[in-house]
Each structure stands twice: as structure tokens, then as C-alpha cells.
């Protein structure tokens, strides 16, 4: 995982729940390349057709509240979103996004600093998000080491794979 993440910004409001990220009618779809056509269909209709790999999503409070559907981060991963940053996240969304390998950053106050189309620069190690256009920035507590390891590995699948291969898995009960 890169220490420096830069990209074009898409903005979302507060309390964007998973129903607004991927609507219930797509829940039987499991192909991420199909899902990505419908991501944010309700919250940000122009996103799916125009988002590009490396783009950064910046949201207000409680992003991803609602159901536990992993379709939402899967779809963002399929688009190749560079990072998801929010004032705060709902718990399961945060875990799912990290687990699929998307840098997921909680930086209270970040949303107010950005408009759609701005450039964002994220310094993972230093814990800072900067608006390239305005120079305004906000700090965040860097992710704990086990989460950085997870992102480093490219997500939970790769991490467990390494663990199983290394034979360190504690499968005894």
C-alpha cells in the first residue's frame, strides 16, 4: 500500500446508508463488475458512469450505515477507488472496506474541506488529508498496525492466505 494516495474527489453527504450505495434490488448480484454499474445509484447517480480508478470518495458522518452488505465496498473496489474518507463510518462498512483492501480513513471534519472535483492528497503514515486546491488539511489517527498489515497484504483474503500458508493458523478448538 502506498503511503501517499492522491486522486480526484467525489463527495457524499451524511448518513449515506448501504441501501443508497447499492440498492436492495441488486443484492443477488455477486459479480463486482456488474455491481459497480449501480454503486451510489441513489446517493450520487452520476458516479458509476464517470468514476475512474484512483478517485477518492469523501463523505460526511456515518457512511455506510444500514445493512451489512459487502456489495458496497466490493463495487468501489471494482472501480478501483483509491481511498474512502469520511467524517465517520458505520462499523460494518468500515470493516468490509478494509477487508476488501480499500484504504478507509476516518478524519472528522474532512467533508467540510472538499467540493466535488477537488484533488485530495492523503498521507497514510503521517495521518493527514489535504485539499490540493485550497491547501486546507485535516489530521487523522493513523490506522493501527494490524489494519495497515491487512491493507499491505491487499485485503483479508491475501492476509489469511499468507497465514494459512505459513501454517500459523490456529485451527484447533
Amino acid at each position: 500500500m502506498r503511503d501517499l494516495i492522491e486522486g480526484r474527489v467525489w463527495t457524499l453527504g451524511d448518513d449515506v446508508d448501504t441501501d443508497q450505495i447499492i440498492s436492495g434490488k441488486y443484492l443477488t448480484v455477486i459479480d463486482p463488475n456488474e455491481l459497480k454499474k449501480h454503486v451510489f445509484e441513489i446517493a450520487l447517480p452520476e458516479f458509476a458512469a464517470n468514476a475512474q480508478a484512483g478517485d477518492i470518495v469523501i463523505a460526511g458522518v456515518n457512511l455506510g450505515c444500514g445493512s451489512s452488505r459487502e456489495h458496497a465496498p466490493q463495487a468501489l473496489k471494482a472501480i478501483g477507488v483509491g481511498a474512502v474518507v469520511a467524517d465517520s463510518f458505520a462499523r460494518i462498512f468500515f470493516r468490509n472496506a478494509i477487508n476488501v483492501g480499500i484504504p478507509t480513513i476516518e478524519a472528522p471534519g474532512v467533508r467540510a474541506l472538499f467540493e466535488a472535483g477537488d484533488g485530495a492528497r492523503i498521507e497514510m503514515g503521517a495521518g493527514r488529508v489535504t485539499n490540493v486546491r485550497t491547501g486546507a488539511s485535516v489530521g487523522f489517527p493513523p490506522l493501527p498496525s494490524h489494519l495497515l498489515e491487512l491493507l499491505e497484504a491487499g485485503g483479508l483474503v491475501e492476509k489469511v492466505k499468507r497465514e494459512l500458508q505459513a501454517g500459523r493458523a490456529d485451527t484447533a478448538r
Partner: protein
Amino acid sequence: MTGNGTGAGQTLAERILARAGGLEQVTPGQIIDGRVDLAMMHEQGAQTVQPFHDMGASRVWDPDRVVIAIDHWVPASTEGAAVLHRILRQFAKEQGLPHFYDVGNHGICHQILAEHGWVVPGDLAVGTDSHTNMLGAMGAVAAGIGPTEMAAVLALGKLWLKVPPTIHVRVRGSLRKGVYAKDLILRILGEIKTTGATYKAVEFSGPTIERMSMSERFTLCNMTTEMGAKCGMIAPDATTYTFLEKIAKHPMHPLAPDADAHYERVVDIDVDALGPMVACPYSPDNVRPLEEVLPKHVKVDQVFLGSCTNARIDDLREGARILKGHKVAAGVRFIVSPASTSIYKQALDEGLIETFTEAGGVFTNSSCSACFGGNMGILAPGEVCASSSNRNFPGRMGAKNAEIYLLSPAATVAAAIRGELADPREFL
């Protein structure tokens, strides 16, 4: 007395997570590797199979601790759902997973776990559904996780968890006639709000909770999800043990919070004066006393008595009791969906199905039904629904601008009779 919030002892969540992590003590913020006592998957579990194989895992860590319960589209209502079901059936066969609640023996996943005793006091339980919190009513930590994470659980039997701080909700007083556990949890949601318990545990206690049945406790813990909570829980007592006596699937580890447990926040609620509550569109925390909303004469197109929050036999009985002798208002579609097949059979035996259908309602097979807008009972643009479920976000039951009002089962039935939001106490 438990917990004035100032002590140095452990909360119930901390006690349980310490056990799961094989530790004496834990503190909020600490990350533990927790051994999982029970892993549950519904249709979303189909997304677990690929990452499970991609991880290079060959066998599920303990087939006796894995439950699969399909519920969102049962029987399959689309080709996509049929494929999800098939993926799960094949996976269960290949892995030798015996506890598969398939069509005919099905129900909403959380209800299946509850009525078959799959989660017991002291457990760490995880499920691929956000309302797994409901099982915390057993005196367990029960939390929702995503399918990739579930794949890791199936492979390793453990997962990392950050020990949450706990909000202590103490409830005293007696619920008046026409006021239910659902009204209480809506009242609490109105105070804690949808983000107030994010990453946190919510522990309920107090004389009102002690008198509650397991069904009512399930309703409370179920909607801690709407507060953003990692888990909602109630310390086990005689009611819990009696409920589990004949059905517990594995040994219990009854744990209780320390008398001097440290709580991040304490919320005291007195229910003596509580009336029926309603969560208005478009958020479960947009809660008001129902009485305040009635003068607006909110007309309804659909009424839904169902979901894991409120579709157990006591909910259906109360609904039928109110409905008896009335008709569903003209132009209203009244959908009743029991939470499980066994509740369906009970409703049949007790004549409740007859009451609902005679009055003009439609009694469906047990499933998530209209709750999530992906199967049946879908709302058209601009339509209004009175629902006993747990979420009313935009698009939850279909059209983005359809409106959902969350209510007790009794209040949904009152709405079905009147054709607009109505006070259930008028029918009692």
C-alpha cells in the same frame, strides 16, 4: 446495583470478549483475536465461498458451529437468488455442514438462531447480517460481519475485534397497555440516535428488562443495529435459562457485568409515562410520540407486520387480537409475514392466519418479505407504508421516495384498519 458508570470493573461485553480472547481482562480500544462460538450465514454467505477458496482454506474450522439459514428470497423469487441458494447448498454439501435451514424448514436467520438455541450466554457469535445484534439478548456478544470476513472466520474460527466501550441503558417502570418493547427501543433510538452507539456495545438492564420475555428482549437488541452498535446485550437471567433449557446447542458460559463496571455513558429511561412511538421517514431515529403525528392523517398504501424485529408469535397474537372484528381499510395492502416456519405453524394452529386473511390481509410464507425492498411487497414511488420492521431509509422498501413509518406491531394493525396511522390503544 450494576453500573453507575464510574467503576473499574468489566461490562458484559468486556467479560464476554475477554473470554473469547482467552484473557482475564480487556479494556475498550484493545484489539483481541476472538474465538467464535457460532457463525451464521444467510444468502450473503454465498459471497463467502469464493474468498474462502481464494484464501486457500480447505475445511471449515468446525461444521457444528456453522448455521446457514436462507431468508431474504425464500423460496427463490429471482434467478439470482436461486443461484445464491445453490452456491450455499453446494458449499454445505462439500464441507459437510449439517445445520442448513433450507426451504420448508426456514425462517429469518436471527429467529432461526434464537428458536433453535444456537447462541447461548457467554458466546461470541457472528453473522453475515447486520441484525445479528438481536442474539445479544441471550447474554452474548453477537455482531454482524461481511462475507469476506466470514470466510476468514470459517477458515480460522476467529476474528479480530476491537473491544467496544459500553453504553448502559437502564430501564424502569411498567409499559402501559398498547405500549410495547418496540416503542421503548424507538424511544431509546430517538435519544441515542443512529450514530450514538457506533463501534459501541449497548447493555440493557433494569426492572423493566428483567420482566420482559425473550421475544421482547430480541426486539430491543435487534434495533441496537440502528444505533450503529457493534452489539446489544442483556445479561442472562432465569428467563434466558428457561428459554434455552431444552434447546441450547452448546454449553453456556453465563457471564455478568461487574457491579462496578465502567460504562462510557449511562442512559436512564422510565417507561411509566411512555406512549406509542413512531419513527418517521427517512431515519429510524426520527422518532416522535405517535400522538403528535396523528393529526397529520398520514394515509397508508401498505402495512407490513413482519421482520426479525417484530414477527414472533406474541407480535402476531397481539396484531390478530386488535384486528379481530375489523376489516383492513379499502385500498390498503396488509402483509403479514411470520419470522419462521415454526411461528407460521403456531399461527395456523391458533387460528391467527384465519383472522388476518378474513380481514383482508395477506399472510405470507416466513421470510424477510417486504422488509428490504428486494423480494415482495415493494413500494411504488410516493407510496406510504406502516411497518413493524427496523429501517426506513430512502429506498429501503422499494422506491427511493416511498415513505416508511416504523411502529409496534399493534400500531401497524391499527393503521391497517384505519387506512392511516392510528393509535392502537383505541382498539384495546
